């Protein structure tokens, strides 16, 4: 079982504030960019409809297009981030734009799971801490540090602990290939399989109706 994704330990960088709640994955990456069969090349389509005018030119008033924000490493945003569609293209696009972490009061379940597999750190903090970070982030040079090992976020006098699923933490810290880990438990999977009831359905094809 080899290394699959780049391990995540400590992230220090500037922040990009997106002060909106309920940002759905359709906004993070719209459907017209989901037709590709590759796993990379999604960064330029991040928040595409918000970041571009109708004729496809970059919208100067959207914060992602502010040149002073180009080096931002941490997206700080409103609650229920990543709701809606299960598209993993959403964390891919965030990561491929250049972000290494998202800080929010709450992330949607599927988005949180997907991010943990691709090495995008999603940190959930109380809303008042997120609000303080968004205020700090009005300065494009303001930095934040996220330490996964100790599960802390620090920035200019703010220090917050965050909860994190221990298995997802281990996976992010080591970058280990999750499939390889699971396959090492083959005996347990096989014994569950043997105990399954005979009436359970299979998809083995039967002739279609004529």
């Amino acid at each position, binding site marked *: 079982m080899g290394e699959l994704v780049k391990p995540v330990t400590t992230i220090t960088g500037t922040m990009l504030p997106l002060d*909106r*709640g*309920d940002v759905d994955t*359709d*906004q993070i990456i*719209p*459907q*017209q960019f*989901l*037709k*590709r*069969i*590759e*796993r990379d090349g999604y960064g330029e389509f991040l928040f595409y*409809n918000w970041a571009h005018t*109708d004729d496809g030119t970059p919208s100067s008033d959207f914060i992602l297009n502010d040149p002073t924000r180009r080096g931002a490493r941490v997206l700080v945003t*409103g*609650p*229920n981030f990543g*709701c*809606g*569609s*299960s*598209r*993993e293209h959403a*964390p891919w696009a965030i990561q491929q734009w250049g972000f290494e972490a998202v800080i929010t009061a*709450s992330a*949607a*379940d*599927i988005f949180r*799971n*997907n991010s943990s*597999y*691709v090495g995008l750190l999603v940190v959930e903090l109380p809303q008042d801490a997120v609000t303080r970070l968004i205020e700090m982030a009005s300065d494009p040079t303001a930095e934040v540090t996220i330490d996964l090992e100790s599960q802390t976020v620090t920035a200019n006098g703010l220090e917050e602990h965050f909860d994190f*699923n221990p*298995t*997802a933490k281990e996976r992010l810290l080591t970058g280990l*290939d*999750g*499939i390889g880990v*699971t*396959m090492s*438990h083959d005996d*347990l*999977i096989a014994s*569950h*399989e043997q105990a*399954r*009831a*005979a*009436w*359970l*359905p*299979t*998809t*083995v*094809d*039967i002739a*279609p*109706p004529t």
Partner: protein
Amino acid sequence: MNTPRTLFQKVWDNHIVIDADPTLLYVDLHLVHEVTSPQAFAGLNQSGRTVRRPDLTVATVDHGIPTTGRSLGIRDPLSKRQIDALVQNCRDHGITMFGLDDPRQGIVHVVGPEQGLTQPGLLVVCGDSHTSTHGAFGALAFGIGTTEVEHVLATQTIWQAKPQSMAVEVEGELPWGVAAKDLILGIIAQIGVSGGTRHVIEYRGKAIHDLSMEQRMTICNMSIEGGARAGMIAPDETTIRYIEGRPFAPKGARWDEAVSAWESLVTDPDAVFDKVAFLDASRLVPHVSWGVNPAQTVPVTGSVPSPDSYDDPLQRDAAVRALEYMALRPGTPILDIAVDHVFLGSCTNGRIEDLRAAAKVVEGRKVDSRVSAVVVPGSMQVKAQAESEGLHEVFEAAGFSWRDAGCSSCLAMNPDVIPAGERCASTSNRNYEGRQGRGARTHLVSPAMAAAAAVAGRFVDVREWENS
């Protein structure tokens, strides 16, 4: 004595391979479509791995396929490459596929149930958030990402942090002219778009028990719009009658074994839920969404709300942005909003009962000359059934376009894109910005409400028509 358990807890327990946090669960049925699987198969191929259980995996094409002129092939080169990739991957790995020329092709969440593959107590996953649909049968069914699709292909298992349990208790009877769609929109309006986050919802109560399987699927389908990991309804006589005789349903002695196993799939009387919400179905009215998320809805008799009606500043800002995107002014009566398009279809409302409900409204009437109206059946089997009942003639006589099956305008990955600035009454599940096309303005409604809007050219209270 055993601890009382919820339906969710029972199905969860039956699938534990490794009892830890997160838990390793065995997957009974893996549904695959063209958009979220190519990178998973590529990863599998690159690492030299195989599909552990092709016999528990089934694929169809739905998101990117055209709904007209299929004999001409797929003209969008990217969609064609994506669909070709799925055909090749299924062939290489021995996976059953209901392809573009198969009479069983359709939206993955319509196909599974109608083929009898979706059964009570199963653990069902798919790289699609509306996998929650299958919970209508008492299955535990949830959407997963592409990395997880690869993991399930390789191991037939999935790691999951255990969600909490939530009961949505719906008492009373749905009034005449009020649909399952109105019920789930009402539930989401009450709990909010993140009210179900980290929870599996069990829908309970008389109003739920009274629903048909199609209606239950509409309810469970939109669980994800309330943020829930999954939605479930305990199997009963309605469920069993629906499954019996379907192509992949158990037969003979195995049918009897299955039915007796399904009978235990109910929440024990003393089981405790982590969270409970109550709703009185008898007070519900048809809903219309005015904004850009599925909780931003009002009764058809109401009007567009003012952002000032929200106490939470984030909700207030969201309402301001939503009104701007939707080009609506606070106080505008819903009945005064004109529509340019009507879309009847999707995994939420593309089943035979949905088409029947819409056809009943449309019969003997004409689509308004300013409205472009389409019907996209959820599957080719739904299409065939509708045609055997003559529903296509009702729709076509009224001026609807009658299409082949797919996701279509629900997410506009195929050519059925709603143009910018135009307004669509849609039976789908998401009114997000850009969902039906950049700049398109979506109003979520039930099939009967969509049909009535097509005829009137604006929203109408379908209860007045149905009573006439």
